[in-house]
């Protein structure tokens, strides 16, 4: 059969006549007789309409056949018409890569969170403070500090300290609550063991024990070092994305988000742990856990009325608020006194110029009236 031969030493082809033997392809160029073993050949055409053969290892030589010779070539050397001969990788390659990818993902996305506890525990104070500085810069950018909230903050800090002392929380002398004015009701812990409570969250609470429940929950995040564990986990995910995906910025975006306020949302496990531990604090301080349950009711009501999706992200990662509320209600001890006096509650309610609030209605009547948009405590 006719073919064209390129010798790999000059960019031209020459006509030649090929014969197909049992194990070899034979042709003559000039006065030289060439004998190529089928086993040592590979395809170089990727199915582009002609058949191009080259030798293994590549010498630069090529044999060009028209497609009309395919049947003869296929009969003589079927190994040249397999997927592998055409350069298509074995499915085993894709399967191995998938296995490797999932192993890497498991190492980073599961292994790093598992290691996040020890890493977070040994993190130097300077590093912890630097991360806190980043979080505080976000707090300062997104919220307004309330000049008239000092007395209210002192009252909340005293209440928190009573809870922590009763529950023997090691960080009880470091935790500090700050009240800020922000567009949404929220409370969150920062890496330096600060707790931010928005005036809008205070406005949402109808009784002191509701607010105490939220603060207890945030103290539990601090005691269990969830803040730094969360940041370390997110940074592990960031490094994973950066290395595997390439430098497309996805990993850095994840890492940056992890030290921003957006990265302070916790896994369901952390939330469950903080719920349980927070209820311990309330019990130890003789504060009725039903307050936290009522706060969850408020949250559920707010989420149901959240037609514009203002409360999307945190609820999606939190355990079901109905279940959380039921857990808190199950440990309720009715008849306990409120953790703040009427006067203290009035001061707290008036923080950030909100002008005070209702004076301790009876728990049974505590139904959310007109509420602003709400976000559950994280």
């Amino acid at each position: 059969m006719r073919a064209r031969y390129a010798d790999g030493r000059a960019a031209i082809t020459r006509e030649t006549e090929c014969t197909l033997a049992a194990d070899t392809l034979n042709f003559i160029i000039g006065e030289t007789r060439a004998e190529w073993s089928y086993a040592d050949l590979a395809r170089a055409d990727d199915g582009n309409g002609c058949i191009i053969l080259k030798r293994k290892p590549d010498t630069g030589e090529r044999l060009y056949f028209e497609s009309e010779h395919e049947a003869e070539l296929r009969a003589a050397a079927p190994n040249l018409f397999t997927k592998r001969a055409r350069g298509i990788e074995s499915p085993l390659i894709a399967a191995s890569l998938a296995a490797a990818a999932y192993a890497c993902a498991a190492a980073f996305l599961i292994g790093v969170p598992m290691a996040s506890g020890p890493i977070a525990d040994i993190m130097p104070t300077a590093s912890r403070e630097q991360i806190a500085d980043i979080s505080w810069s976000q707090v300062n950018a997104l919220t307004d500090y309330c000049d008239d909230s000092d007395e209210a903050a002192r009252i909340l800090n005293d209440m928190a300290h009573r809870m922590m002392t009763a529950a023997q929380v090691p960080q009880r002398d470091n935790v500090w609550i700050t009240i800020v004015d922000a567009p949404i009701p929220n409370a969150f812990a920062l890496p330096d063991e600060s707790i931010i409570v928005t005036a809008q969250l205070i406005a949402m609470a109808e009784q002191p024990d509701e607010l105490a429940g939220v603060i207890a929950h945030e103290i539990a995040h601090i005691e269990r070092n969830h803040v730094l564990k969360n940041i370390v986990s997110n940074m592990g995910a960031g490094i994973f994305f950066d290395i595997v995906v390439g430098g497309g910025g996805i990993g850095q975006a994840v890492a940056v988000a992890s030290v921003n306020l957006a990265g302070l949302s916790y896994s369901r496990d952390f939330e469950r742990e903080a719920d349980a531990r927070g209820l311990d604090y309330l019990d130890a301080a003789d504060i009725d856990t039903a307050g936290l349950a009522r706060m969850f009711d408020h949250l559920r009501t707010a989420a149901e009325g959240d037609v514009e999706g203002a409360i999307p992200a945190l609820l999606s990662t939190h355990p079901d608020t109905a279940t959380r509320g039921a857990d808190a209600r199950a440990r309720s001890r009715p008849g306990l006194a409120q953790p703040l006096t009427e006067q203290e509650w009035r001061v707290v309610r008036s923080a950030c110029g909100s002008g005070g609030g209702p004076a301790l209605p009876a728990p049974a009547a505590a139904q959310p009236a007109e509420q602003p948009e709400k976000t559950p405590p994280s």
Partner: protein
Amino acid sequence: MTSEAAPAQAFRHSGKFIDVMGLAAKNALLTLLTFTLYRFWARTSMRRRLWSRVSAMGDPLEYTGTALELFRGFLIALPTFFLPAIFVYYIAPLALDPGTAGWLAFGFYLLAVPLIAAARYLMRRYQLSRTHWRGIRFGLAGSAAGFAFASSGWTVLQWLSLFWYTPVSRMNRAKLLWENARFGDQPFEFVEDGQSPQKDLWWPFALGWFGTAFAVPTVFGIVLSVGLAYLGLDAVASGEQATEPPPNFIAGVVIAYLIAVIGALLGYLLVWAPYNAAAMNAIAARLSLDGARFRLRAKTFSLFLVTLAGWIVTIFSIGLLAPIAGFLQVRYVINRFEILGEPRFAEIGQSIVSAPNAGEGLGDAFDLDMGVGVI
């Protein structure tokens, strides 16, 4: 060179859209399933497909690179690029004082300018070294460091000149790349004819520059205003009236912004199409191989449409089908590429430029466009 002209259509791309689409879809799926680790195999198979459909003087190109070579480049980049990058971006902000960490990150960004230029040169070197025609290998001689140094200087001049140096730097880069390019043992030339290489680029560039500075923002503003007015949201958006926002307020604003962004993107593509076409044609016109010259017939509107089609496919597939954009561009260029005269192919021997044994690790680390980059 021989005096006879080359065949009427010396270059041809026979790639079928559906053929490339099928491979791109399979690659996208496997890339997703493997958290992108399959990308090296995907690139290799796509290049093999695109190269093999390009024929010159009736014989196809051949891509001989392997996925393992690309994967090896990735593995080399892990300790040499990713570890320092992880330290700079993840560890230093926590371990060092903020000032030092900030300067370190700034220095890394500055270093990225020459590193990206070097990465592009090394990518070109790898791709050419894996491209054969009639068994003869292409190649790229020269120094990646030298190119990176020169290219960084031109980049700085672009910044300092508010980008008016761009036509000069584009031709300078093309000259440096093509003068180092080889087909076998034959170098390409970037012909100097005594005239400025960028002399035909200034008016198209001015159109793109002023269009980007004024026309595109104007289009964006007009489309956004019309969109908001049509939706009856202009008063609410500007806060002139204390009316309650309509129920579809957010959706309406998002749609209006989207339409405005699309309008601005279309405007951007349109105002730069004349410059891009002129630059591609100017570069091709200066190329020579063994005395044979080349010509490219890129036109403004056809290039605009091809680029637009590529963008649409890329955006709507969130980048997964980006090779389709590469395919459209390659086919566009190849089918408009001509050779004037014919090199003495019988006297062009095998390449003596050494070929790298790993590829594109740095380019992959920077997530650079792995497109074909014909010109």
